[in-house]
């Protein structure tokens, strides 16, 4: 109630709205956590929580990159394939005897290049993002199968596996990787010209052009950043699963898009925040985890997930419409 009053007092539209979207999300998350810790035995155990955090982190990193793409008014369906590609590539390089640092670095460069190629198709080739990335999603998945022979890559060095399986002050190390990337992404959106340009592009490309913003470079950078995040997620995934898995990352793009829109991002661009996406990602992962613990049929769980995505966006739109 008091939250509502504060919204109506200010005629300034942006801030209260943001707080409200995110406030609601925090509330939903808390309700979920409280419910699950009473309703199930397994939820509040250290083992389950660290598992949950590990999985959330990987999906959450992909979602960070997707947030930029969506704010810019685009979409990137290829990030799931990039996750898979990075996972296999790093595994193959390590197995071939390369050191961890150069293997990781090379993989990240390759991932970023995929994103830049997407940007090239979209800006220079004028292909709509949906189509361009649908194409690259398929192409990259095919490339994965080709280089891995569609087989798992096992026998990775222990020091590599420790990245994802290790803990720092009792929390999974993956969580800290995510946390650092969240801060980086938040910083970029709020404190750099690139962040502002991302919003401007999503708002109106023509205005951006007439304001002297370099659309080409920004488009490359936005999709490049999205793919870089996917690359990081892919490497961490392989470390966590101890194997390079050719089908890894499948469907991650949908999960990332869902996290963004649950977090308040608009697919028509110029709207969305890093904080919102983070909350969206946590909610998605908690639901999945909780559903498993409650013994809900995974297929039903999938249906529920879909319903939640639609409902979240519907509620957000409804609330915005009634605020004006």
């Amino acid at each position: 109630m008091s939250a509502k009053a504060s919204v109506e007092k200010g005629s300034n539209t942006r801030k209260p709205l943001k707080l409200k979207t995110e406030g609601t999300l925090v509330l939903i998350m808390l309700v979920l956590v409280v419910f699950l810790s009473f309703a199930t035995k397994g939820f509040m155990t250290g083992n389950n929580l660290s598992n949950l955090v590990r999985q959330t982190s990987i999906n959450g990193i992909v979602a960070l990159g997707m947030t930029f793409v969506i704010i810019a008014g685009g979409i990137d369906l290829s990030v799931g394939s990039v996750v898979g590609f990075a996972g296999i590539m790093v595994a193959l390089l390590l197995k071939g005897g390369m050191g961890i640092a150069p293997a990781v670095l090379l993989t990240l460069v390759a991932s970023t290049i995929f994103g830049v190629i997407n940007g090239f198709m979209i800006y220079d080739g004028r292909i709509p993002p949906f189509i361009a990335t649908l194409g690259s999603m398929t192409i990259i998945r095919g490339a994965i199968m080709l280089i891995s022979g569609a087989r798992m890559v096992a026998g990775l060095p222990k020091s590599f596996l420790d990245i994802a399986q290790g803990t720092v002050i009792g929390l999974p190390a993956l969580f800290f990787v995510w946390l650092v990337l969240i801060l980086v992404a938040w910083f970029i959106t709020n404190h750099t010209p690139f962040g502002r340009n991302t919003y401007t592009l999503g708002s109106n490309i023509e205005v951006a052009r007439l304001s002297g913003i370099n659309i080409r470079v920004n488009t490359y950078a936005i999709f490049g950043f999205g793919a870089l995040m996917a690359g990081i997620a892919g490497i961490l995934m392989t470390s966590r699963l101890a194997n390079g898995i050719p089908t890894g990352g499948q469907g991650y793009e949908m999960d990332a898009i869902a996290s963004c829109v649950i977090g308040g991002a608009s697919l028509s661009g110029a709207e969305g925040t890093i904080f919102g996406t983070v909350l969206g990602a946590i909610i998605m992962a908690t639901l999945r985890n909780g559903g498993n613990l409650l013994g809900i049929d995974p297929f039903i769980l999938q249906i529920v997930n879909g319903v939640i995505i639609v409902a979240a966006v519907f509620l957000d739109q409804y609330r915005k419409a009634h605020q004006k």
Partner: protein
Amino acid sequence: MNDYIVEMKNISKAFPGVRALSDVNLNVKKGEVHALVGENGAGKSTLIKILTGAYQKDGGTIVFDGKPVDIKSPHYSKKIGIQAVYQDITLAAHLSVGENFFLGNLPMRTPLTVDWKKVHSTASELLASLDLRIDSRTLLKDLPVAKQEMVAIAKAMYEKSKLMIFDEPTALLANEECEELYKIIGKLKSDGIGIIYISHRMEEIFRICDTVTILKDGRYVSTLPIGETDENKLISLMVGRKIEEMYSIEHHPMPEVVLSAKKLSSKGIFEGIDFDLHRGEILGMFGLVGSGRTDIVSAIFGATEITGGEIEVFGKKERIRKPRDAIRLGIGLLPENRRTQGLALPLSVKINTNLAIYKTISKFGLINHKAEKSNADRYVREMATKTPSIETAVRTLSGGNQQKVVIGKWLACKSKIMIFDEPTVGVDVGSKSEIYKLLEKLTKNGNSIIFISSYLPEVIGVSDRIIVISEGRQMGIVDRDKATEERILKLASGIADCSDEAIREVV
């Protein structure tokens, strides 16, 4: 006893924090063209939105065609016979003209197939009845904007309107297209349809309207027969200022040439554009819509390709290939359509002000938030932009205030040469005079301005010299003291008069 089509009494409406309307009256007779005037923010749009069902009134009564009504929804409003024609056409661009008439209600030959013959024959009849030579099979998007607007009007007529609302219908039309519109309005009038006409163009209000209702700050001022008022009186009722004071600005042209176009051309669009812009000068550019004037300035700004001739900026030959080049050279452009080209509508005043300078206010890739904020604050203050805060989304501001934000963007950019493309279209009288004052201030500070407008008294009133364009060609440049409406209109219609020595630099 009742010859009113609509009677709105004591209408009030409040939004959170603002009282948009209080006790406003509007009575429109059948077969009357009723002008609704007032500055932006006076409450015209709100009043209209209550009629069309987009907003619900908080208080007051509406009697429509003799019966009290409660307009709950846009659907209901249409059902009882209220139609609005907006400056932004709200039809399906990719469908044919005929189909657009029947949108959502296509006549069927069988339960599953459309009766195309009937669609096009009915549509053709309707178009013919309005003297419109448009093929009903043409796709709407292939028609010029003016024709699209006529189609929208024809559609509204087909839907048997009793009251039609025109919201700035001539904002995007050239003079001869306006004539066509006036003819159609005359016809609607003789059919007994009531018409509410919103416009900022005084000359047309006096030409086609019968009665005028004036609003100011959400309040009802008065309703007058048009014959009992004149332009001066009307404007002073709207803003409390006289008209001739509006254009009286100081001029500061200096000899130094800042921008020089030499035989500039763009294949198939314009050619032979040749002029100098001086420091502190306001160079008016006049031409009918479609004359190529927007393309010319767009080319100088690097947004339209130049295929011949050259441009000198501050005495140096420059190649301007993209807007970024122009901005670097200190050129700023206020585009004709500020909503689609000038502003990032969902973003804040602050971001829009800094849009073109994020690079300059950043160090090591980090935005200097202090500079960002102080820029926004400064130009909101200098421009007297009315906004709740610099964090407000520009979408929510009125037309005049949005325009000020665009100007602020280029001021923040330290542009020395500013191109204003129709800056006063859709802007109320009060903001117009503020824009003229601003031109004065800019030129006083040594900025130079190219000023495009379709409204002759305005171009003549504020410019130092006027360059006239017709069909992509430069017809001549006329000095301020020799500029008469007749002389300029003649040139703009393509009649070059070489014997007239007031006209210089005829190409």
